């Protein structure tokens, strides 16, 4: 099953990459896309944005305006259209730059998420590298980090133990967004993170290195569903267990938009029949992983309405 999925992703990627007028792509290509030709005359960034916004709209690509703005801003060295250096938007793009715009925007035509197209995204005050099929952090998860930080404030370890001896574990770290945000905010914290996907483990390690946080984070390739004991062996008791686990119902997976269906790791989203498969497993592990001090509760992020389920573990 997973082999098929990875083949599908590779083909989707290739389809995106090879969308040239003369390109040949196989019959198995996920979606036909003929890329617009690179203009002969030089154009400005603003004009390029407008052209691609129209292309995206014509092909039914979601968030056409945001997509073209983010991609082109990125190529101009800025994170958003607002922060592009004054005047750059109306300057003529060099031929090389124009080709880059065309190359990246064409990838978006295949419904590749913008975050994968530009290979990075921001999470709170961090910029993280993004790579398919590792799960892209959602904006709502930024608030989850806030909640954890607030709790770390409110419930210091009894006995006057300071952050220096506190550690947490993250299950399903993905790109490392949650762990790295926490470590950045609390210089004394240490963490252990696990993920069942080797791609995720590698990406988290890469992001930790880029942010200089690799000394305080250990990342392991473990599947909590299959190897619960291994998880317990990884480290001593931790004071906090944090996770943004898959929670979608299996039957809802097929109605996901192409951005997710074609490019992101389904295992990061599929929570089983009741959506609670992974969650239950984590909760089962919790009493053994968590140290004996402090209150036990967890905050789960669920649902479109972003309800937080506070559950008492006692």
């Amino acid at each position, binding site marked *: 099953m997973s082999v098929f999925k990875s083949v599908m992703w590779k083909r989707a990627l290739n389809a995106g990459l090879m969308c040239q007028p003369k390109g040949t792509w196989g019959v198995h290509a996920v979606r036909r896309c003929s890329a617009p030709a690179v203009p002969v005359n030089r154009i400005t960034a*603003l004009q390029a944005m407008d052209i691609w916004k129209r292309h995206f709209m014509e092909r039914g690509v979601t*968030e056409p305006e*945001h*997509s073209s703005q*983010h991609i082109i801003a990125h190529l101009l060295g800025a*994170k*958003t*259209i*607002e*922060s592009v250096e*004054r*005047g750059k*938007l*109306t300057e003529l793009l060099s031929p090389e730059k124009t080709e880059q715009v065309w190359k990246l925007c064409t990838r978006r035509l295949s419904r590749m*998420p*913008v*975050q994968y197209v530009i290979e990075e*995204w*921001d*999470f*709170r*005050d961090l910029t993280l590298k993004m790579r398919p099929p590792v799960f*892209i952090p*959602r*904006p*709502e998860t*930024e*608030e989850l980090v*806030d909640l954890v930080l607030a709790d770390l404030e409110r419930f210091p370890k009894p006995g006057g133990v300071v952050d220096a001896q506190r550690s947490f574990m993250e299950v399903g770290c993905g790109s490392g967004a949650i762990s790295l945000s926490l470590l950045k905010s609390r210089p004394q914290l240490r963490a252990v993170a696990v993920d069942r996907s080797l791609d995720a483990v590698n990406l988290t390690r890469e992001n930790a290195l880029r942010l200089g946080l690799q000394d305080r984070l250990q990342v392991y390739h473990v599947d909590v569903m299959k190897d619960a004991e291994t998880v317990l062996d990884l480290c001593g008791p931790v004071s906090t267990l944090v996770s943004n686990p*898959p*929670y*979608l119902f299996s039957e*809802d997976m097929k109605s*996901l*938009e192409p*951005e*997710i269906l074609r490019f*992101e790791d389904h295992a*990061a*989203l599929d929570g089983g029949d009741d959506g609670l498969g992974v969650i239950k497993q984590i909760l089962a592990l919790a009493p053994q992983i968590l140290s004996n001090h402090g209150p036990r509760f967890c905050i789960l*992020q*669920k*649902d*479109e309405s*972003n309800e937080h389920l506070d559950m008492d573990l006692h």
Partner: protein
Amino acid sequence: MFVNGWCRIWTSCRRVIYSSRKRRIGGGGWRTLTGRTGPKHANTSGAQPWSSGAPSRFCHSDFGDLYENVSVQKYIQQLTEEHGNVRKKLQHLYVSESERKVLQMRHTELLPLVTMFERIQEAQKDLEELSLLYNSAGSKDEDEQLMELCKEEEMQISSKIVDLRKDLMEALVPQDPLDSSNILLEVISGRTTGGDICQRFTSEMFEMYQGFASYMNWDFEVLSCSDSEYSGLHHAAVKIAGENVYRYLKHEGGTHRVQIIPEVGLSSRMQRIHTGTMTVIILPQPVELDVRIDPKDLRIDTFRSRGAGGQSVNTTDSAVRIVHLPTGITAECQQTRSQLKNRDTAMKVLKFRLYERMMDKENNLRHRARKQQVGMRTQSDRIRTYNFSQDRVTDHRTGYEARDIKAFMRGGEPLYHLVCDVLKHSEMEALLGAVESSSSSSSLKPPELEQSAD
């Protein structure tokens, strides 16, 4: 209307200054001995210092000149009396703790003013003694030497008196408690029919203030910024932090007008002057405690609030809009790719605006005036004109004129001079206002102060 009020006070100020200027003799800002005794000894050969290359102004005056003002003199007398009374009271034993605290504070406030005034009077006495010596000198040789020494010392003392008077006047200016605040500065493009003059002008004003912040060593943090489709700026919001930011920039709020002849290459018919406007809004930063917001009063609009969110959706739309439901005040931000950061920025801006609304509610004249400066955004409310075709910047409140508009728009020293000039005028106006209001209330003063001497 504030503008009329400003003009009214200005004419009275000008009258005051002109009358003192008639008695002002000599150049360079100090009076000769002979000058003090009357205008018949006026030295008219001295060149007017303010016409030699300095920017021209309608109402040229020095702070120190206000010393001569009769009302100001009365005001100083009042303060001196008050100081005496306060000191006497403090020496009494039966003053309560709370009253003692109040009196002590007032004493601390008044002491430097009174001390300065005493020093001025001492210096004037010295000058009088010197003039006696001077007038009694004969024409012998040794007396000539004496006269030289007298002249030198006279110059020194006179210059000291001028400085002391200026210091005293500046110290008498009522303090604006918000002066040291950081600010939120907003630039908003006006609307024109056709063309992008307003937006381009807005962009240049943004850069001018950016340059000024750099010149003043202030921190310039862009909170939001929306470019127009052409090469210009619709709107931007910036937080400027540093020393006394509000004091210097508070008078920048209002409509700024630009006059420009567009680029070469158009037909002569098109070569007429084009006009555009933009608005600057300056809001002081609230102290944290002043603005308390109940989360229940806020509605936060994000992508997910419009529908599905979470794991089932991929989005790059991190724009945030916050509405404060009780007042309807809003703030939005899409400056970064992080929704959380955008929300924090929007909250910052919301607090600035709420604080402003709170201050308005207190019916503070200053804030009402500021609102009126910005309100209509019509040509008649303009505070300054930037005339590129004639290469000059004119501030309509003071008449200050600066040349070399290109250098001015870089936001360095030329803008600093204009800002200081406007500040000086407003501080003088504030001083006269305080003087006038105290003279009108002194006639109604309860008799208790006179009874304090027992």
